[in-house]
């Protein structure tokens, strides 16, 4: 493949210099080996080192380079550059405060994540070896533990935009179900009590934006449905 030029429209905002955010038109020449959006962004930064974005593992494991790509949240490192219509419009994840350019403040997102106690609670003395699960019990955790907390889902959820301080959001709720579904956890009742709230859980109206954008192909809506299911079975 030969060298090619790609057009970008990028959200720029430096609170020290800019009064308000603006969209910058910029193009960059790519090498034949550049396949992913992140490769292009790295080249862009070499051209204009004031352009800021987060990145780390560059292979869809760390979740740092989540951004709004042509109107849809995704990871730059997993997005094929040739699959995108040009000019490629890049914006920071919607709904979170912008620190600079494509970098957002994720404090609120992680606050919600921490609020569901994302760790195993088991008060029994630890056995000599590990706490065992049957293969069926372990199976239930598939599709839950893989979340990389990139925030693509929560920041594409209108309920999270309107109430980020009260609604746990799809990422947090997926993690909540990951521990509710774990047979080694002993905190089930307290976890359900923690979520039995018109804001924390029931702001979800199952519009499935989260499922649509998850770069790991996970399904927070199904997990939320299972939490509601557990609550119903507990209540009736």
């Amino acid at each position: 493949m030969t060298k090619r030029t790609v057009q970008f429209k990028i959200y720029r905002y430096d609170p020290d210099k800019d009064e308000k955010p603006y969209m910058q038109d910029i193009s960059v020449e790519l090498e034949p080996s550049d396949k992913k959006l992140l490769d292009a962004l790295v080249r862009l930064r070499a051209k204009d080192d004031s352009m800021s974005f987060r990145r780390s593992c560059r292979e869809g494991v760390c979740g740092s380079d989540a951004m709004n790509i042509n109107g849809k949240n995704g990871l730059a490192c997993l997005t094929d550059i040739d699959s995108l219509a040009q000019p490629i419009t890049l914006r920071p994840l919607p709904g979170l405060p912008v620190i600079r350019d494509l970098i957002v403040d994720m404090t609120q997102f992680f606050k919600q994540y921490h609020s569901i106690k994302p760790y195993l609670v088991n008060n029994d003395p630890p056995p000599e070896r590990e706490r065992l699960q049957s293969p069926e019990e372990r199976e239930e955790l598939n599709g839950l533990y893989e979340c990389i907390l990139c925030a693509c889902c929560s920041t594409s959820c209108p309920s999270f935009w309107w109430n980020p301080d009260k609604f746990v959001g799809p990422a947090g709720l997926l993690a909540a179900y990951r521990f509710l579904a774990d047979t080694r956890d002993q905190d089930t009742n307290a976890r359900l009590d923690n979520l039995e709230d018109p804001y924390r859980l029931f702001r979800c109206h199952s519009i499935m934006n989260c499922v649509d954008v998850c770069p790991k192909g996970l399904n927070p809506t199904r997990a939320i449905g299972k939490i509601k299911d557990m609550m119903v079975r507990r209540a009736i």
Partner: protein
Amino acid sequence: MVKRQAVGAHYGLKDWIAQRATAVFMALFTVVFAVCVLTLPSFTYETWSGLFKSGLFRFLSFLFFLSLFYHAWIGIRDIWMDYIKPDGVRLVLHLVTLFLLVGYAGWAAQILWRL
């Protein structure tokens, strides 16, 4: 002054079930109602009000309106919760909605039972 945010009202499940249950009832009643109306021998005021003479039909249609208003209460309250940030305004809107819907329910029953 810092206003601390508290969540954890410990309700929501009942409303969530009620919203679904009322929706199912309304869907079923709509089918029953459509069949009853379409199979009327003639479409006059007499046959129409005759439909509402039966106790079962009055019972079901009254339940339909109760379902409708309860369903609407949860739905409208959800909208206020999503979009109205000042607590005082939200409380007022909740109350206005509640009063209106209770009033409508009474009004609907009055109309229905007068037929």
